[in-house]
């Protein structure tokens, strides 16, 4: 699903990724590890199509609507409620019965009781849970997750694991500081220096 050969990305004079080779087959679950600033986030953003590589080849065989991208930022509107946020994304991702799916998603991540409160009042952990709702809402074929456990408490982490367990067979590229948490699911690892 993802194929990268001698991939490189440069921002002005700064070389963030250099000569990277990567292959993620359908159903593969690849963990990306590396220190801060090593380019994990950049790699995910390249695969999501947010910017283009400066060198090498990158092929992602998945249409935009089938990618679930979890960024560092939660990508939700602070003045809106979780339901409104998910309703918007559901609309943009062309989901049938989007209200019901939004509700179901919120329930799965334990946010149902705050569904009508403004996101601006949420804690870091709740924001992350909502971001995960947004990511999984449209049942993506490819998951691009940037530090998915960031900010989650134990309960949140369990809910995430449960969600991933329900989606066996999904293709995923996950950047993480804590590879052990997902070691059982991982089909391969990539370490970026």
């Amino acid at each position, binding site marked *: 699903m993802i194929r990268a050969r001698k991939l490189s990305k440069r*921002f*002005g*004079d700064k*070389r963030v990724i250099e000569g990277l080779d990567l292959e993620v087959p359908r159903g593969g679950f690849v963990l990306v590890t590396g220190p801060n600033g090593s380019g994990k986030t950049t790699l995910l953003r390249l695969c999501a199509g947010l*910017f*283009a590589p400066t060198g090498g080849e990158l092929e992602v065989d998945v249409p935009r609507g089938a990618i679930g991208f979890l960024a560092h930022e939660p990508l939700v509107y602070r003045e809106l409620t979780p339901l409104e946020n998910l309703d918007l994304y559901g609309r943009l991702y062309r989901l049938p019965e989007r209200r019901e799916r939004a509700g179901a998603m919120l329930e799965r991540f334990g946010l149902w009781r705050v569904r009508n409160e403004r996101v601006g009042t949420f804690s870091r952990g709740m924001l992350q849970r909502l971001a995960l709702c947004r990511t999984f809402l449209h049942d993506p074929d490819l998951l691009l997750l940037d530090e998915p456990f960031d900010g989650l408490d134990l309960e949140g982490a369990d809910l995430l694991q449960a969600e991933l367990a329900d989606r066996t067979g999904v293709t995923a590229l996950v950047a993480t500081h804590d590879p052990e948490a997902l070691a059982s699911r991982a089909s391969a690892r990539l370490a970026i220096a």
Partner: protein
Amino acid sequence: MLPVGGYALAFYWAPEDADQGFSQKIFYLHVPIALTAYACFGWGAWKALRLLWTGDRRYDLESYTAVHMGVIFGLLTLVTGSIWAKISWGEWWTWGERQLVLFLILFLFYSSYFMLRYSTEAGPRRERNSAVYALFGVVLIPVSFLAVRIAGTILHPTVFTHEGANLPWQMLVCFLICLGGMLALAATLYRVELAGKRASVSLRELRELLA
């Protein structure tokens, strides 16, 4: 060499036909410069369109250089136009002179183009944004022309400035040679500047490879 020679020839020929004084000679300078500026902006917009169309990043430098040429010629247009206004009507600036006003608007616009480039980090973002803005510029030319024209009827009295289309053929030929020479000059400067820019980009890339 040829274009520079061609232009020098045009300039020498002009005085032979220009028996109407210095203001007439400015005409041979001012209008070709103005038309050349339009041509540069148009060329820049064309390269910008190619950039957006094909995604080939080489077009960015070409578009940028063309716009740069356009601004230089635009500035010269304003200067020569101002001189002409001073000679003809005793004022360094007049809002009634449509060409002048139009070029002021375009000069402001394309100066903003440079602000855009300087304040955005180099990369695909800057290239695309510059290209889109260059396209806006070339659309602005006829729109502003129309605007200034209708403004003349009510906002500022329009001073009739240019001769009609019935120039004697010698003057027309002379004018066309000047125009050709000016365009050739612009093309030469364009190639020189583009080569220079490309060289510095290559140098930078080489330095990075070696680093």
